[in-house]
């Protein structure tokens, strides 16, 4: 009996919290490859004409904030989120959206202090596989797939981008202009174009560089590339 009211009380609180979350506008990532909606099992052609099939794509994001028309900064969250194409729910972030904001700013990567203070928990637990154990540091973003052009076992390519120390700090800050006419009730959709991994700022060819597993120049180029993969969907 005593247990029952405790559970009842908990459920009430939980329901309340869930309701709050649902009623808030959200930010949602929509995966694309060039102009097409991305599907995990489909083949696409990158800018170098290589055929690619992508089966894993994950990245950390944090430090979400808004810039208002009057140039004030509103912090949304300093929490870390792990976006994972295999987990639909991970691609939706619950933030309050303020009507007069003009810009959305966020980081791709993990704050450097969390790379230097031992083992973290929750979404940053190294057990999630987004962490280099042989040299300390988070994998900020990873992209795995196959391509007939990859001269590797199983034609696999594997890009794991990390590095938190200068001159190879792979954290990137993204700034997006918010659409002027946005219906408050609808989620803000951020189009995420995976094709940019190969062509954002530098041309990366799977045929010549199928792997990235360390901090350094290649990781920096890939980070430059994918930092240009985001854009606001205009008609939503």
């Amino acid at each position, binding site marked *: 009996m005593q247990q029952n009211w405790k559970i009842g009380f908990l459920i009430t609180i939980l329901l309340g919290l869930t309701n709050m979350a649902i009623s808030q506008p959200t930010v949602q990532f929509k995966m694309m490859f060039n102009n097409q909606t991305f599907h995990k099992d489909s083949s696409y052609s990158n800018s170098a004409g290589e055929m690619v099939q992508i089966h894993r794509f994950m990245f950390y994001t944090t430090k979400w904030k808004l810039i208002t028309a009057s140039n004030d900064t509103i912090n949304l969250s300093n929490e870390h989120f792990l976006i994972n194409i295999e987990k639909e729910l991970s691609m939706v972030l619950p933030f309050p959206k303020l009507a007069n904001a003009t810009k959305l700013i966020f980081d791709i990567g993990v704050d450097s202090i969390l790379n230097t203070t031992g083992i973290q928990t929750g979404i940053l637990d190294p057990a999630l*596989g987004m962490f280099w154990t042989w040299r*300390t540091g988070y994998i900020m973003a990873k992209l795995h797939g196959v391509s007939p052009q990859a001269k590797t076992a199983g034609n696999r390519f594997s890009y794991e981008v990390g590095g938190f120390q200068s001159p190879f700090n792979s954290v990137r800050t993204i700034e997006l202009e918010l659409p002027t006419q946005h219906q408050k009730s609808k989620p803000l959709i951020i189009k995420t174009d995976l094709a940019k991994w190969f062509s954002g700022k530098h041309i990366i060819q799977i045929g010549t560089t199928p792997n990235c597993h360390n901090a350094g120049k290649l990781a920096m180029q890939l980070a430059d590339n994918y930092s240009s993969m985001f854009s606001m969907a205009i008609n939503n």
Partner: protein
Amino acid sequence: MQIKRTILFIVVLVILCAGFISKDNHPTIAKRVQFKVPKGWPTPVYDFSKNPLTEEGIALGKQLFYDGQLSKDGTISCGSCHQQFGAFNSYDHPLSHGIENALTTRNAPALFNLAWQKEFMWDGGINHLDLQPLAPITAHNEMGEDIENVLTKLKKNKQYPKLFKAAFGDETINTQRLGKALSQFLLTMVSSNSKYDRVMRGEDSFLLPEKLGHDIFTTKCAQCHTAPLFTDYTYRNTGMPQEPYLKDLGRMTITNDPSDSLKFRVPSLRNVSVSFPYGHDGRFFSLINVFEHYRNNMQIGPTTDALLKNKLPLSNYEIGQLRAFLQTLTDSVFLKDPQFSDPGIGVLSKPPLDQHN
């Protein structure tokens, strides 16, 4: 009326919430252990405030250290490659051995005085002691396991949830607690009771060769192998040519900086007489090999340490005295202390024969 209702509401809410707090009637409080810094030693770099030592935490760490379940096939524990009689290095293995006959690319270093060490591995790639065990656990040629699998095995085990509760207050088993428990045990492994330490404390005195060796050591070796830890924890190229099969670039692998090519962490010389083979890839079987390297075989390259640009001239006489001094760095108390030994085996009374020194 309004106020009375509000007060009543708050009181009821507080009572309801209190119901959840009092659920655990017998909370276990782990017994705190004070970390002792040997007299005259620097302040440890490990942040004990984030992971206070407790009897239960240390015991859990020791259990984990000697548990083969941390490896994929159950055959390799931390203790497999870190053996107490060799000051927790790998007996006679130039390169340490992993699961399924795998060989690694480096020599398993001796383990002690880790509270003073800021970075780990021969290349310094790991920046926190708590994170260090994850490297051998996940390396395919060492323990070959996924962290997730290790945690699953520990959660299914009958003992571990209780041991984690005793150490950390509840039964949660996660990567952070695994690392913290192992750190607690590793941090207690302090080696500060060699003859050298007794001499420094005024409780003993050097024999003549040991004293002469100490003087030579102070002039020729102590700039890098600095007392009391007998390392300055820097990365240096000591003129060891790159091994053509391993192709190990050392510190440069981590920094990508060509000026760090072939640099490796300066190892502590405490317990050096029992922790052969030597060098990051175990290429030197005996101290004689090491001395011969320094005085004759060094290959001077662009990143060779400035202190060694002319190699390290050593006479046969000096080598003899240095060997006598280095013997005084052996801490037989540490090598036989049952609080560090394999719970299943205990202290090995007779360590294997030293065929080299």
